[in-house]
C-alpha cells in the first residue's frame, strides 16, 4: 500500500513537471502617460491571455484582473511603492517591483 502510494506520488510529481516545464514570464514598462503596461507570457511561447494579474501596495491588493487577449494589462500607475504580480499558478508567479518599471 505504502509502495503504491509512493509510486503514485512520484508519477504525479513527474507528470506535473512535464505539464509545467515552461517558465512564466512578465515584463512591464511605463507608457509615459501615467499608465503602466505589463506583458505576460511563457517560455514555450504560449499565450498568457486570461492569466490572473494583481497589483499590490503594502501587502494589499489594489487591482485584480486578467491578462487580455494580447497577454497584456494596462493600468494607472499607483503613487508610491507597488508590485505587479503575474499569477499563473503555484511555482508560476512572477513579481515585478514598481521601482524596476521604467519608460
Amino acid at each position, binding site marked *: 500500500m505504502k509502495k503504491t502510494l509512493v509510486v503514485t506520488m512520484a508519477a504525479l510529481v513527474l507528470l506535473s513537471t512535464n505539464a509545467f516545464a515552461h*517558465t512564466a*514570464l*512578465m*515584463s*512591464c*514598462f511605463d507608457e509615459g502617460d501615467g499608465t503602466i503596461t505589463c*506583458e505576460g*507570457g*511563457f*517560455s*514555450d*511561447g504560449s499565450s498568457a491571455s486570461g492569466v490572473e494579474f494583481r497589483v499590490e501596495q503594502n501587502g494589499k491588493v489594489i487591482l485584480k484582473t486578467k491578462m487580455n487577449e*494580447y497577454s497584456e494589462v494596462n493600468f494607472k500607475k499607483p503613487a508610491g511603492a507597488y508590485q505587479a504580480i503575474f499569477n499563473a499558478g503555484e511555482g508560476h508567479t512572477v513579481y515585478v517591483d514598481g521601482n*524596476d518599471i521604467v519608460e
Partner: protein
Amino acid sequence: MKRVYLAITMSLLLSSSTFAHFQMLYTPESALEKGATIELREVFTHPFADEHTMDMGKQHDSEENNPVEAFYVINKGKKKDLLNTLQTITWTGSHNTAAAYKSQYKAKRMGDHLFILQPAPYYEAGEDIYIQQITKMVVNVAGAPTDWDTELGLKAEIVPLTKPYSIWTGSTFTGIVKGNGKPVPFAEIEVEYLNRDVNLDTNATGPSYIEAPQDSFVTMGIKADANGQFTFGLPRAGWWGFCALGAGSDKEYKGKELSQDAMIWVQVKDMQ
C-alpha cells in the same frame, strides 16, 4: 622574381578580401532581461580577420554610396520601419575606415525583436560584381519567444530553427537557407566568428581575440543539405555570422553580376 612575389602577394590579398564579406548588424546583447533602448551598428566588414572594411552601398558608376534599401523590425507580428533611425558614420577597422551606420532602437515590449537590414548592393571591384547581404538579427526581451522563427519570404533568407539569442557555448545552430521562400539545396554557407570587441563610442573594432591556425579557419565554408538545412557547432562565446552565398533570386544589378546573400547573426553564451 621580385615582381612574381608581388603579383602572388597581391592576388592573395585580393582573394582574401573579396570573399568573406559579412554585413554586420551588431548590438552588444541579444537576450535582454527587460526592455531597453539598444545601440545598433551596421558595418560591412570581415568579422574574423578585419583586414578590410567596405563602404556600405558603394557603386561602380558613382562616387556616392547608395542608401540602405530597407531596415525594419518585427515584434509580435507588428512591423516597424527603422530606415529613418540610421545615421551615417565612419567605421574604423583594423586596417582602414569605411562608410557605415549607427542607430538606436527602443526594445520596449516583451518577446522577439526581429531586425532585417537590406543594404544597397555593394560594388566589389576585385571581382567586378555586386554583393547584397539581406541580414537578420534577433533581440529578445524577457525570454518570451514570439517572432524569432517567422519566415518572411525574403529574396534571400536564413530561417532559424534554433533561437539565435539562446545558444550555449558548445551547442549548435540550425537554419534553413531560402530564396523567395523556397529552400536552396546544397547552399554554400560561410561562417565567421566576430573575433574582436566592437567599440560603440569610437565606432571601431579592436584587435583579434584569437589567431586562426590556418586560413580555412578564418571563414569556414559549409554546405546545406538537399533541403537547404544546415547545422553548425559553436565552440566559443560571442557573435557568429552565417552567410548563404547567392541564395537570393536577383542575379544582376546595373548590368553586373549580383550575389544576393542571406545573412544571420547568432550570439553564444558560456555556461557559467
